[in-house]
């Protein structure tokens, strides 16, 4: 790889790592807060899987960046404007309907994304995708089941799920948006073509909600900016928590 392509691949890996880290963090906030113990276990399990992905992607990014960069310097020593996760991942966990609706919509996306990433010409990214895809299939089975349960359950669960979809909808276009970096890497056979995922994603999501009494929101408002570090106000608070120990005691081994 050329130096430029290496640097671009590093940035790409860090993006995917940031996505996983921030979503994993939000999921981990459910620990001891789930609606029943089985669900505490399941949510912790998904959180753990995402932290694992974050380690693989950030670790690879750090390796490409070189020097004394590590998965931990990336996770703990960048401020809000340097994080490049998509905005949807940083939204506060909300109620259980919000968390599961986001998870379902992301799981459908992750499955398509990882399938495509398995074909990356970058062997390391392809290998990470292969490791992650098995868990994603499992997560998706679970989160899809929750859409059916909540969308078919009580009036309240239906109303909460509908509200969650309304609140999330405008953050979804970012999942399918390509910028210059990803276009360059796509041309090099490294990155996934996000735009190509939208149609199959819509089909899958529509099929799921067709089994419920919930209506998919119309496309309208949309917000993006995560890839350029233009975040919501929520991320800064998340980072103050995530990074506290490393910031308060710099330069230590843990």
């Amino acid at each position: 790889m050329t130096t430029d392509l290496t640097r671009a691949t590093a940035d790409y890996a860090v993006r995917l790592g940031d996505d996983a880290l921030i979503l994993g963090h939000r999921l981990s906030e459910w620990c001891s807060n789930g609606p029943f113990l089985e669900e505490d276990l399941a949510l912790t399990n998904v959180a753990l899987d995402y932290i694992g992905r974050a380690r693989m992607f950030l670790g690879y990014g750090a390796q490409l960046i070189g020097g004394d960069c590590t998965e931990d310097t990336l996770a703990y020593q960048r401020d809000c404007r340097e994080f490049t996760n998509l905005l949807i991942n940083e939204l506060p966990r909300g109620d259980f309907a919000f968390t599961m609706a986001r998870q379902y919509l992301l799981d459908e996306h992750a499955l398509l994304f990882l399938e495509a990433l398995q074909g990356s010409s970058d062997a390391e990214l392809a290998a990470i995708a292969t490791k992650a895809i098995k868990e994603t299939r499992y997560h998706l089975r679970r989160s899809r089941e929750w859409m059916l349960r909540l969308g078919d359950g009580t009036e309240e669960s239906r109303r909460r799920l509908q509200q969650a979809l309304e609140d999330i909808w405008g953050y979804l276009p970012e999942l399918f948006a390509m910028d210059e970096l990803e276009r360059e890497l796509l041309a090099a056979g490294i990155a996934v073509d996000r735009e190509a995922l939208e149609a199959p994603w819509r089909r899958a999501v529509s099929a799921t909600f067709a089994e419920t009494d919930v209506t998919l929101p119309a496309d309208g408002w949309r917000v993006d900016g995560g890839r350029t570090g233009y975040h919501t106000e929520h991320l800064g608070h998340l980072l103050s928590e995530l990074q506290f120990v490393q910031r308060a005691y710099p330069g230590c081994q843990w």
Partner: protein
Amino acid sequence: MTNDSSPNEQQLEAAFQARIDAEEKIEPKDWMPERYRKNLIRQISQHAHSEVIGMQPEGNWITRAPTLHRKAVLLAKVQDECGHGLYLYSATETLGITREELIEALHSGAAKYASIFNYPSLTWADIGAIGWLVDGAAIVNQVSLQRTSYGPYARGMVRICKEESFHQRQGYHIMMTLMQGSDEQRAMAQDAVNRFWWPSLMMFGPHDAESAHSAQSMTWKIKRQSNDELRQKFVDQSVEQAEVIGLTLPDPDLKWNEERGHYDFGEIDWDEFNRVISGSGPCNRQRIAHHVAAHEDGAWVREAIAAHEAKKQQRASKAA
């Protein structure tokens, strides 16, 4: 105690005790004395609640774990505890009580959980100390319970012990890393030990002489070793582990007793023990309030599942 039992019941109880004495396992469908059942429900559910409430002090540091590796390990650990809780609730349910009843008893205060979880986790080192000392103490107890007389409980313990010893090593590793670190890190580790040492010793309960449930539990082999025996075992192993990494256990009376072949140690502050048990621990109210709040927040989710299942059945029976 068996004066008011019918002759038939006396015979059954004698046969039951004979099976216990012969080291046979009692299984859910076997006859058992009502007090054995009650006692087991109390003990296993207390154990289950402890796993569940114990998620709180540890969960308190998941979002702040200092490296991604430590975060993943801590998440996995809390997930294990969650699993232990589920496993133990199931074991309790074999005795004819529902999960909802168990949770009610926890919320009302009728059921207890390990009092150690009424202490706060204030620094990252506390996660090390909890793993090393609290899980360490738990294992000593649980190893002994692998031979408990009730089958589902004994089998649960076998499974749980494997994972807990893993957790203890992880906690010890956190402490070791801190002790090899900066002055601030070493001070943080020592401070955590200073706060968690005595409460860990209290985990084994009152002295044998004062233990309300002990004698009967020993006869029924619900317990296999006394509180004081287990506590001594824990002290002996911990002293050596502390020395290796340079931690000082906060007990001036701690010293090797050649004659006993054990470490002598100071007297536990039973006033504190009783104070914490009876509700004035640093976090008692917080722990229960947190569990109640999560349970109440989740009510609509549980209702949604029930409604969905009912509708599904209805649809299925219509289709049939």
